[in-house]
């Protein structure tokens, strides 16, 4: 999940670590986490968004270097960069929604994490996927 939002491997690992430290602190302070799975996703998303904001101060989001993966294989790397670029073309909430969808979460979980009304998840998701599909096509990504 973190890798889908943060390209650099070390940064992603650090963020996962931070998420679990956060969880540990919460459990230690006897905080009640009603839905741990959703909670973890929510904290992860927030951490990734904060990290991206900090990162943007130094590099432009569309800069190729920022979006580049550590993967050595050039073709795979190229495709990944295109997907990341397409995701950045969406609104933040939309890209988060698409990423959560790729994780195979239920609509109920997506609603809990994103705060979108349960009844609106299907509609928002449909719109987001269409938009992302169009962006990928624009970037000449071979969808199917």
């Amino acid at each position, binding site marked *: 999940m973190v890798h889908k939002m943060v390209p650099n491997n070390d940064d992603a690992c650090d963020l996962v*670590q931070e998420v679990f430290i956060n969880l540990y*602190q919460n459990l230690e302070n006897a905080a009640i986490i009603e839905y741990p799975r959703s909670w973890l996703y929510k904290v992860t998303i927030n951490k990734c968004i904060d990290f991206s904001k900090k990162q943007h101060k130094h590099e432009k989001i569309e800069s190729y270097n920022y979006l580049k993966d550590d993967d050595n294989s050039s073709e795979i790397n190229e495709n990944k960069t295109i997907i990341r670029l397409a*995701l950045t073309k969406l609104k933040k909430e939309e890209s988060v929604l698409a990423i959560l*969808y790729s994780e195979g979460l239920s609509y109920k979980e997506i609603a809990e994490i994103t705060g979108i009304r349960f009844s609106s998840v299907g509609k928002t998701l449909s719109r987001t996927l269409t938009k992302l*599909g169009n962006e990928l096509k624009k970037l000449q990504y071979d969808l199917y």
Partner: protein
Amino acid sequence: MTCIDERLLQKYIDGECNKDEVIVVKKHISDCSVCLQKLAEKEKVSAEIKRAINTLEIENIEIPVFNYTKSTSGRNNFKLIIYSLVAACILLFVLLFVDRKNDFHQKEIIIVQSIPREVDANRPAGDQELIIEVYDGKGHRSEYNIQ
């Protein structure tokens, strides 16, 4: 015949429809080739986008080990110090003031005013004799003769 909206199609693809909705969608696509095509298209796009985004994932992610020292232990020590100080203050207050109050009762002073001799009515009031007797807590008597 009203065609199925995007929302319902997406729900159907993701298996989020209830029984009634499933029946409606199935019945409709069996009659409507446009919606059937739309459904197939949407199904493909959804699956491909899922697959594409999942290629960004790296397996076997290594989370750095964290040696987490209890951050709250410092706070607990601080609390302990505060509680100890409060307890010490209460004890000090009791020792200084409550016990001292009892001492005051023990050191009671009684002042008795008396005029032992007959008053000479012909003399002015300032020349009259006045004796004041003072008894302290131990019963010692002191006499002050004021003229």
